[in-house]
């Protein structure tokens, strides 16, 4: 079997192992889960270490999958998988826009920071700190700024606010990765370009950019994953309809009556992340020559 096929097989075994673990625990685990330090009579006390095994808290895996193909809310509504997929696609689109903005902004930052050491010293610490700011803080800010713009004539749909917030999470890995890549050429190569009296732009195009590719590709992948997270969280924060984030919250709220339903959008969100990362990985396929000597993320 080729190495590729081997990797896929082991991956499938891994997923099956997780499923088996789930069902095994459900079958063997205590009905009320494992609780430490509970006090009699006080509901909700103590620390729950392992979950309850009833069908409400832990549905069977086949029930979760099967639920996807049952109708969404009874009657003649389409199977759950339909709204899940359409919500996931919507979120994917918004995340893609956010990713694009983040990549451009991050790359411009990296170019500036590589060109001027002072810019790197001044800006990079703030870029690192910026990632400790929870984006929940920004969501209402961006949303209200967006609606202000919208009212004053510049079209600004609600999803654009979500995309901007997603771009905030996406730009960081690109800025850092692109900077590292632009700074990566050996001193010997940089001096070679100097002996050719090549200025900043030819050196950038013929040396630094190609050398940056192996650092950029993992960064772009990370940015895509971050853009997806940002889009999902921002959707909930701003209250955007039609995305997968909102669906997650909605269906989780129905946890007591329809426990398996919440797993639908969860699987959808997982698939979303995988598709986003996979699409970006495709970019790397055409750039094989530039990846001779690739650096892992």
């Amino acid at each position, binding site marked *: 079997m080729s190495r590729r096929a081997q990797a896929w097989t082991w991956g499938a075994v891994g997923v099956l192992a997780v499923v088996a673990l789930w069902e095994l625990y459900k079958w063997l685990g205590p009905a009320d889960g494992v609780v430490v330090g509970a006090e009699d009579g006080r509901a909700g006390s103590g620390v729950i270490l392992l979950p309850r095994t009833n069908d409400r808290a832990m549905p069977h895996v086949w029930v979760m999958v099967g639920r996807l193909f049952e109708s969404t809310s009874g009657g003649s509504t389409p199977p759950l998988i339909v709204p899940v997929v359409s919500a996931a696609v919507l979120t994917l689109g918004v995340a893609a826009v956010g990713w694009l903005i983040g990549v451009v902004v991050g790359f411009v930052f990296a170019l500036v920071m590589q060109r001027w050491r002072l810019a790197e010293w001044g800006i990079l610490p703030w870029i690192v700190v910026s990632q400790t700011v929870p984006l929940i803080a920004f969501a209402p800010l961006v949303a209200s700024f967006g609606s202000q713009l919208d009212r004053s004539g510049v079209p600004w749909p609600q999803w654009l606010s979500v995309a901007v917030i997603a771009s905030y999470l996406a730009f960081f890995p690109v800025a850092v990765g692109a900077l590292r890549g632009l700074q990566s050429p050996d001193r010997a190569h940089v001096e*070679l370009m100097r*002996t050719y*009296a090549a200025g900043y732009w030819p050196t950038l195009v013929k040396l630094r950019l190609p050398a940056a590719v192996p650092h950029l590709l993992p960064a772009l992948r990370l940015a895509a994953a971050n853009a997806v997270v940002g889009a999902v969280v921002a959707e909930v924060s701003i209250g955007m309809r039609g995305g997968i984030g909102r669906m997650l919250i909605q269906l989780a709220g129905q946890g007591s009556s329809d426990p398996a339903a919440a797993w639908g959008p969860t699987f959808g969100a997982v698939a979303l992340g995988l598709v986003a990362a996979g699409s970006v990985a495709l970019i790397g396929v055409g750039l094989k020559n530039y990846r001779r000597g690739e650096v892992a993320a």
Partner: protein
Amino acid sequence: MTDETIAVRAAGVGKVFPTKAGEVVALTGVDLEVAAGEFVSLIGPSGCGKSTLLRLIADLDEATSGTLSVFGKTAHQARLDQDYGIAFQQAGLLPWRTVGANIALPLELHGVGKADREARIAELVDLVGLTDFVDRHPDQLSGGMQQRVAIARALAERPRLLLMDEPFGALDEMTREYLQSELARIAAETGAAVVFVTHSIPEAVFLSDRVVVMSPRPGRITDILPVDFGDARVEGLRESPEYFERVTAVREALHGAPVERPNER
């Protein structure tokens, strides 16, 4: 002699590096003239300043004292006018470019048209004997082949001066000897002046018209020895008594004292 017949003229050149532990005098009082078409080696132990001197000629560093001119201009102007080609110890090939594209790099940077580039690449790969490898990538080549590409690249714009910093240092002895013969042939064919840094005595004697012996602390020239083999730089030379005599002369100059041979005691 007009300035056009002097490739490199150094008068009282010195270089001082400021370090945390005080100043390091890498070079002091260097007086050297390299004529057009002449092959000159710089040889000496670590810290003698030979690579520093080469870097000053290449305008990769600036001298702190004295004057240095390349073809009658400042080193800075000579670099901007692309009067020299350079080869380092690591071949320094860009890994994402093919052999042909690597050789063409200086040509691309200086706006040479595609047809002219292709023609020049073909000439150069033929010169270094790598015609079959022109579309390979550096990671598919051995160390010796990579260095040949680097030499071809250094010759791309027909420079009148070649600067080489221990280009064969990372190669095994047999490849070294082969490349030395190739380099001697190429230098003779193109008529370029060469300043060649090495720490191998046989290599310096085989290749050069003159061997410049340097020593450290502070870096300076201690001796300049003529080596008159002219056109006879072929493999047979390595076995001749005259060659050994010159090697001994250089070795003695490096040690600063005559070397005692066992059968002369």
